[in-house]
């Protein structure tokens, strides 16, 4: 596998290099602008927002909106801020990501290294499931969760996210394992290694990049979900639902600074994941997932 650091053969002149940097920086500005607006305004007192320039830096710097959003803003009848919901999200995301990634790895392993009649059809069925619009599953899912006794609970949410995450995680692992030399697996079999032993000793150790991709993908999707959280969360609503309650209040003065601080708080875990694991992300994508 080639290194992420590139070694392209294309040669370019100084003028065109300047142009390239200009384009790249212009796009960086485009991508940064909304984040800048959100952060700048979350640090302003409210009158400065409603009466002033949205694109300007704060004149008076304040952390009060952040404190409000985290621990004092009204969410329903309780002035709790987003804090208590953070834990709900964590309790939901961690098991859901771990389970769906594990299942995806095993499925990908089976589908590429232990192929059998009909495996292509099964993979096709799994892949198509990525595309189901979630709105249509709400009502039947609610009745299934009710029958399982999981309605309105975190395990119920975990189940839902695992079920609808398997498609993508399987896709990622299958494409990754497809480029892994099958001869190695065969050699291990001849040496007498079994199904799980091969998975554990041979496949998993080389799966780092694709695990990163899958975890990022699943973590982001599950953390950001609102529809399932609001419908099946019951008393364990995740942070996105609380953020919605904060931002969507039907009456009263809109405290934009608090809303923006809340929005950033709710997005912080996924942002951190992207920034910390971002460079592994391209490596992981490169290592297989796009090699259809």
């Amino acid at each position, binding site marked *: 596998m080639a290194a992420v650091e*590139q070694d*392209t*053969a*294309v040669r*370019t002149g100084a003028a065109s290099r300047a142009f*390239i940097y200009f384009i790249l920086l212009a*796009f960086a500005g*485009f*991508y*940064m602008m*909304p984040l800048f607006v959100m952060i700048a305004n979350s640090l302003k007192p409210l009158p400065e927002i409603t009466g002033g*320039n*949205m*694109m*300007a830096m704060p004149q008076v710097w304040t952390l009060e909106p952040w404190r409000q959003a985290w621990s004092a803003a009204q969410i329903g009848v309780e002035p709790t801020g987003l804090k208590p919901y953070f834990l709900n999200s964590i309790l939901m995301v961690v098991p859901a990501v771990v389970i769906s990634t594990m299942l995806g790895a095993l*499925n990908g392993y*089976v589908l*590429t290294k232990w*192929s059998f009649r009909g495996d*292509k059809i*099964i*993979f*096709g*069925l*799994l892949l*198509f499931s*990525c*595309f189901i*619009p979630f*709105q*249509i*599953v709400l*009502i*039947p*899912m609610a009745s*299934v969760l009710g029958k399982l006794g999981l309605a309105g609970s975190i395990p119920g949410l975990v189940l839902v996210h*695992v*079920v609808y995450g*398997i498609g993508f995680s399987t896709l990622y692992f299958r494409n990754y394992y*497809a480029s892994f030399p099958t001869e190695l697996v065969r050699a291990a079999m001849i040496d007498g290694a079994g199904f*799980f032993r091969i998975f554990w000793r041979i496949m998993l150790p080389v799966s780092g990049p694709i695990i990163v991709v899958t975890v990022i993908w699943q973590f*982001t999707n599950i*953390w*950001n979900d609102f*529809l399932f959280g609001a419908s099946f969360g019951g008393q364990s609503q995740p942070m*996105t639902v609380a*953020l*919605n309650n904060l*931002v969507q209040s039907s009456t009263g003065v809109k405290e934009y600074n608090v809303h923006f601080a809340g929005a950033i708080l*709710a*997005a912080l875990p*996924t*942002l951190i994941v*992207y920034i910390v694991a*971002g*460079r592994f992300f391209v490596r992981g994508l*490169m290592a297989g997932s*796009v*090699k*259809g």
Partner: protein
Amino acid sequence: MAITATGADFRTRLQDWIPKLVLSPSLAAMLIFVYGFILYTILLSFTGSKMLPSYDLVGLSNYAKLWNLSAWWVAVTNLMIFASLYIIICTAIGLTLAILLDQKIRGEGMLRPIYLYPMALSFIVTGTAWKWIMDPGIGIENSMHLWGWDSFRFNWIKDRDMAIYTVVIAAVWQTSGFVMAMFLAGLRGIDNEILKAAQIDGASNFSLYRRIVIPLLRPAFLSAFVILSHLAVKSYDLIIALTGGGPGRATELPATFMYSYTFTRNSMGIGAASAVIMLMTIAAIMTPYLYAELKEKK
């Protein structure tokens, strides 16, 4: 590629069964929670369900009603505009950025996360931020006026004919960096020897990319297309947060249409019918891709 069991001893037969056992929970979950629910939705689309599911069959009348609703056609037209622009622009920006970033750029490590981070945000956050930025009263237009550019106009979000393009802007902002990452990964996977050989043959940079590099990126194009098209068809949160379907009903998409008929208008039958049409559309887009994907591996 498959490992065929040659020995017929017990151990091998057991090894034959384990993979299938490992796969079966996922398969079962899929059959129930995806295909079972799709069948259930198809069933609902033939019933007169209102607020909760009911099972009085009404034939095709939900489809007939759907056909006659101008709101549905608005939603379908919007999806066509939105999806085609969204996919084309994202792909173009993603490819351009990936190629430029692949030119031994200093600070690539800084730029990449900047391009990628929007994907980490939920559409609700994206929509809220862009709603603000594009609002003429408080956003860019206002800022430009405050900075002295009085004739600056950017009021698309308030304009019935232009509002759908604001959805494109916000959606492109969110996912084009991700597409960039996919192309970048594809570029980095190309063997440099091929490129060097072509350059020795005297190919210009432009024709090098057009003739050799881009064709080699075919798998990345396919993956990007699949991910973008499914995001486009499923787009719901972004519309709700950005325009709420307005001005008027000018930015409704099939996903918002389906949600509103199923849940806020208590016309679950019509909602289910629209969902079935959406699923059929997705299937039509996906089948060629799946076919290619599966055939290749034989």
